[in-house]
């Protein structure tokens, strides 16, 4: 049996805590350290689960040579500082902030083409949910224009999202083009306070070159199955509907309920995708090391 790859998490907020629960379940990854800036609920929870913690000091993360992957769930500003240090220390960084130091990654779309990257940016929750659909439609039918509308429960939109909502629309729209392959793109986000909280829904509109319904449907179904491998709650809600050259598809994301409630699919998809990236890297390393 191969040894688990050791990882650390920076930032014990909602995202960091949810990551922690997912990592504790991972068969390929071992969470050895959680770093925070102050005593917090997240730190206390980690200790209670037997995870080693460190406060206000990144050195234990940087100096532990056994740690190969570091998830950064702090803030964009902090990640700009951390990124250099992590790289100098030889760690692979998986960035869950909007800092975008490294290339965007959506596991089902471009992870395979990012050999040797040392810093991966997880785009946005909406990007993780909709880039695969645009990508699948583009490969089947050519995407001239892609537009997505994410609706998330108000309760699952934290201060990070609220204080910088423009970041979501800009970054997501960019990812629909850069990774999805659409020539032009637009992103919209809507917060809905309904009770009980609604689960995250994402509508994707794509204007295509070749409106071939069968090809589009099978391409979309295939990628949905791939995303489901790392985000079990990812589901096709309305399969591709064609109207002229416009394709409308709706997907929903139910969270795994690890730490955050199930309606927080928007948070779950980004932590699940981040763990998905790390697990694929770990699997690649263990194959390489086995044959070496």
């Amino acid at each position, binding site marked *: 049996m191969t040894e688990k790859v050791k990882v650390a998490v920076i930032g014990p907020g909602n995202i960091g805590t949810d990551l922690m629960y997912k990592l504790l379940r991972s068969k390929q990854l071992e969470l050895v350290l959680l770093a925070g800036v102050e005593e917090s609920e997240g730190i206390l929870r980690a200790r209670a689960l037997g995870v080693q913690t460190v406060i206000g000091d990144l050195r234990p993360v940087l100096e532990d040579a056994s740690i190969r992957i570091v998830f950064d769930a702090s803030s964009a500003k902090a990640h700009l500082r951390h990124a250099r240090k992590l790289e100098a220390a030889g760690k692979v960084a998986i960035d869950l902030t909007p800092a975008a130091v490294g290339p965007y990654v959506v596991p089902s779309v471009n992870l395979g083409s990012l050999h040797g990257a040392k810093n991966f940016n997880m785009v946005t929750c909406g990007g993780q949910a909709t880039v695969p659909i645009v990508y699948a439609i583009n490969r089947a039918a050519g995407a001239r*224009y892609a*537009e997505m*509308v994410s*609706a998330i429960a*108000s309760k699952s*939109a934290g201060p990070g999202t*609220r*204080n*910088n*909502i*423009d970041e*979501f*629309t*800009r970054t997501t729209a960019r990812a629909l083009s850069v990774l999805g392959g659409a020539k032009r793109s*637009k992103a*919209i*986000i*809507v*917060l*809905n*306070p*309904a009770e009980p909280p*609604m689960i995250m*829904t994402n*509508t994707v*509109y794509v*204007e295509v070159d070749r409106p071939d319904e069968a090809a589009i449907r099978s391409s979309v179904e295939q990628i949905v199955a791939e995303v489901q491998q790392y985000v079990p709650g990812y589901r096709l*809600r*309305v399969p591709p*509907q064609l*109207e002229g050259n*416009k394709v*409308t598809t*709706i997907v929903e994301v139910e969270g795994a309920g690890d730490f955050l409630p199930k309606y927080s699919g928007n948070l779950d998809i980004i932590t699940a995708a981040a763990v998905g990236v790390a697990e694929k890297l770990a699997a690649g390393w263990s194959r390489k090391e086995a044959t070496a």
Partner: protein
Amino acid sequence: MSEPSFVHVLDATLRDGSHPMGHSFTREQIAAVAGGLDAAGLEYIEISHGDGLGGSSINYGRSLLTDEEMLEAAAPVIHQAKLTVLLLPGIGIKEDLEMAAKHGAKAVRIATHVTEADIAAQHIELARKLGMEAFGFLMMSHMAPPEVVAAQARLFESYGATTVYVADSAGTMLPGDVKARVKAVVDAVKVPVGFHAHNNLCMAVANSVAALEVGASFLDGTCRGLGAGAGNAQLEVLAGVLDKLGYRSSLDFYKVMDVAEEIVAPMMKRPQVVSKNALMMGYAGVYSSFLLFTARAAERFGVDARDILVELGKRRMVGGQEDMIIDVAYRLAEQRKEKTA
């Protein structure tokens, strides 16, 4: 009760009216309406895609003109009024606001769902930095109780909003509902309070008057009532009613009537009436801009538009969720297939 004697009036024909026009106002139409309204004494003339700056999209309908082109068409004919734009955070971004300021916009309405004012802090701050008046605009106010509406209005005020608005985006409130919410807001903030009506239950003008009775001092109107759903408070009617009630405003009653009758009426695609679907929106509390999208989805999926609207109301959909019309129509069509199978 102290009633404000002066009422500030904003015309939204070239913004809310963009919905029934399919976001296809031409340069000539914009210049004619804006010029007429300016001469008729309007203090604020709002011009944008119906869903605000950046609203041109598949989800909300594409604009014939870009935001920039619309402002360029209006700016030269506006001499005394304040050119005003709308921005919904999550749809439009700060760069859109900077563009509008550069093109002469002097005021902006930053609109959020009634419980989500905190997503607008950065946009309000930017507007003030650009030297603009910044209105905080609480959409779908019927969905929250008065104390919540007041708390959200206070948030807007704390970010620097110069006026806060209670908006009945679904045209579903009755005068009592309006009074409860507007009064709670008037009591909670120091800045002036406004009210934006929709006419789905034929209450737009009556509700506007109700808002004034509890201390509102800003009202919206549109020529011929042109707007989403069954439209808005009809500007020229509002002008006459304000006059009869003894309120002062900057409106020239006759000139406002002339703009509505001679300039706006001839460009309308259909008369602004309370159709059965618009009535259903008011009845079920559904966002007025869903009207035409619902009619289209009903036809495409072969279901009754009223069933779609009732389901949207049940699901408590908020402004901007036009995409869920397809979701509901698809689901209703699937259910029917299962039943007949």
